[in-house]
């Protein structure tokens, strides 16, 4: 860190280099007057609220056109506050009981409310105190006869520097000139951060006192990846960040172009690039990053952080939301994968010596069949709303798969009897994460519709190495020949039976692993949403024929290290030939 660099919280990625524009915080002098007529003060208050409402309605409609529904929703929220009967009552009560002027009463009530919201446990709710402040200031402005906008209009690209940007502040800005945002306070969920992300401009928040270090006309650099602000950069810093900006921009443009492009290898082989999600809230990111499906919906998140089991209806709603959201693209719902490192207090599972080798995932579901059936019914009901597939985790033996399908058949029968519609031919697959399943994949491939390889556990069980144990982390080797050979066995067994194979472990998003995985013939690959576009860019540059050769070579090598070296050599060659 150099002396002119200030560290904050990275809130929106990118690099901006521009002159600073410091937002002045509007402060009002609120004095307490006591010789007043309460009736007259209430009249003044209602009038100021009325004027604020008219103003906000205007801003709301402008925001709707300029930013869309999400941002406009903030101002709609402000309108709700102005119409809040309890808020008005509490201010009027203060006026009447303490016989004070409207400004003083409004100021008092606002302070109490802000106190209340700032003490909340949830960060998002804490950040909402700024909305209360914002509404209150608007009304205060009318009470004191001050006009809303005192900042000078923007005429050139600027980086907006503020103590904390209120929604009203941003509404008053000409956004086409705003290239970056820096704020003293706030976190990733503050208004400035959300605003910047929706505008696609870099932002750094939580800088403590950036407003105190900058005046108008200062040159500023914002690094939204590292969460840094550079004040009055030196020529060296300027050159460094200009280059970083251009690299980021080119990369983003290259990636953005790929959002709606298929994932096709250089010689025409097509693979499906999907997203892993935990809750329906992750959908937005998956779609924004061009996911071609959901390769893993971790249903256990619906069961976690609560006192009791989610019922069929609640699960159905969540599955349906994802199925509909993906609009006909495949959605693979993994049935409850709990136990091991994930606990549910209300299940009251016995403590075990070896939880990772114990009573968990499908083993638990086959024992607690009612719970399992409830989930299967919910998934079946959601299957009408999109292309839903079911996947069982932790299958070790064929009998388990058959038993699970037996319960699925019962769930289907029940629904039919109740005249509830579902998709009768829903695909059912197996998550391959136990070496036994990989070694006996040929038997499983006869009966399963597809496989998805869960590398996190597969590596752990193959290497007999606990992933969380740092002392033996050297043994957790995705590129160990044994692991790659198991992956090849699974893929080959499925392909011989005409079934497709995907992968949903962390290895799928590893740049180094992708060339080999493509060469081994994976049909689908699923990862966190933010990894999708870089993976698509990489896969489109790879040639399937060459990758097959690479994989064949790799599987003859003796160690992780040799295999990694080979990939580095070969993929570097591919990058160079690609230009």
């Amino acid at each position, binding site marked *: 860190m150099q002396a002119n660099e200030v560290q904050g919280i990275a809130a929106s990625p990118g690099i901006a280099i521009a002159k600073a524009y410091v937002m002045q915080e509007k402060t009002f002098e609120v004095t307490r007057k006591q010789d007043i007529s309460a009736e007259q003060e209430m009249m003044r208050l209602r009038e100021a609220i009325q004027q604020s409402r008219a103003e906000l309605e205007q801003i709301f409609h402008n925001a709707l056109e300029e930013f869309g529904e999400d941002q406009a929703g903030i101002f709609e929220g402000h309108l*709700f506050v102005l119409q809040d009967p309890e*808020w008005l009552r509490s201010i009027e009560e203060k006026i009447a009981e303490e016989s004070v002027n409207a400004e003083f009463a409004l100021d008092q009530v606002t302070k109490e409310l802000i106190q209340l919201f700032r003490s909340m446990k949830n960060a998002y709710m804490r950040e909402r105190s700024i909305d209360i402040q914002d509404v209150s200031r608007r009304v205060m402005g009318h009470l004191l006869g001050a006009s809303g906008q005192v900042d000078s209009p923007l005429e050139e690209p600027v980086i907006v520097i503020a103590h904390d940007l209120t929604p009203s502040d941003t509404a008053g800005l000409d956004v086409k000139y705003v290239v970056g945002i820096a704020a003293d306070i706030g976190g990733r969920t503050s208004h400035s951060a959300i605003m910047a992300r929706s505008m696609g401009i870099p932002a750094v928040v939580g800088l403590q006192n950036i407003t105190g270090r900058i005046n108008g006309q200062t040159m500023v650099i914002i690094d939204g990846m590292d969460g840094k602000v550079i004040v009055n950069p030196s020529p060296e810093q300027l050159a460094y960040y200009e280059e970083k900006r251009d690299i980021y921009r080119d990369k983003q443009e290259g990636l953005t172009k790929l959002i709606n492009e298929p994932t096709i290898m250089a010689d025409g082989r097509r693979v499906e690039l999907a997203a892993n999600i935990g809750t329906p809230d992750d959908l937005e990111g998956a779609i924004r990053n061009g996911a071609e499906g959901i390769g893993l919906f971790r249903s256990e998140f619906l069961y976690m952080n609560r006192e009791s089991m989610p019922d069929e209806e609640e699960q159905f709603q969540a599955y349906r939301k994802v199925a509909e959201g993906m609009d006909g693209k495949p959605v693979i719902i993994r049935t409850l994968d709990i136990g091991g490192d994930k606990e549910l207090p209300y299940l009251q599972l016995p403590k075990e010596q070896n939880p990772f080798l114990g009573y968990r995932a499908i083993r638990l579901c086959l024992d607690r069949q009612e719970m399992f059936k409830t989930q299967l019914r919910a998934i079946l009901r959601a299957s009408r709303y999109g292309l839903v597939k079911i996947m069982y985790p932790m299958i070790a033996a064929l009998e388990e798969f058959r038993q699970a399908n037996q319960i699925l058949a019962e769930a289907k029968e029940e629904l039919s009897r109740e005249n509830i519609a579902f998709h009768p031919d829903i695909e059912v697959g197996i998550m391959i994460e136990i070496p036994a399943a990989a070694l006996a994949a040929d038997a499983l491939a006869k009966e399963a519709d597809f496989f998805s390889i869960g590398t996190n556990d597969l590596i752990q069980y193959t290497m007999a190495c606990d992933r969380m144990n740092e002392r033996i982390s050297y043994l957790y080797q995705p590129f160990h020949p044994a692991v790659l050979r198991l992956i090849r066995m699974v893929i080959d067994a499925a392909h011989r039976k005409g079934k497709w194979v995907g992968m949903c472990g962390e290895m799928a998003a590893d740049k180094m692993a992708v060339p080999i995985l493509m060469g081994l013939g994976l049909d689908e690959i699923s990862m966190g949403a933010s990894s999708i576009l870089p993976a698509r860019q990489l896969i489109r540059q790879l040639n399937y024929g060459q990758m097959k050769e690479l994989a064949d070579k790799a599987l003859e090598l003796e160690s992780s290290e040799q295999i990694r070296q080979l990939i580095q050599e070969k993929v570097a060659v591919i990058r160079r030939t690609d230009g």
Partner: protein
Amino acid sequence: MVEKKIVVGLEQGVHIRPAKQFVKIAADYECEIFIHKDDNRINGKSILGIMSLAIDTGEEVTLIADGADEQEAIASLENLLTGREG
């Protein structure tokens, strides 16, 4: 007067958007509406009140409606809080 215990099913609890929907629905009815959570009683037509309860998913609240259209009000608010609508 109708009283109904409800377990909130909205995934992220009652944050701003559901709170807005709640107030919108409540405003459509003549009857008085209150929410009870723990020992707090809140006017169901007050957005700040609802937000200040910071209702999280899986928590239990009690809805109380009192007036001519109390039954309908409770039914549609229950749909919202359990996440069954839409």
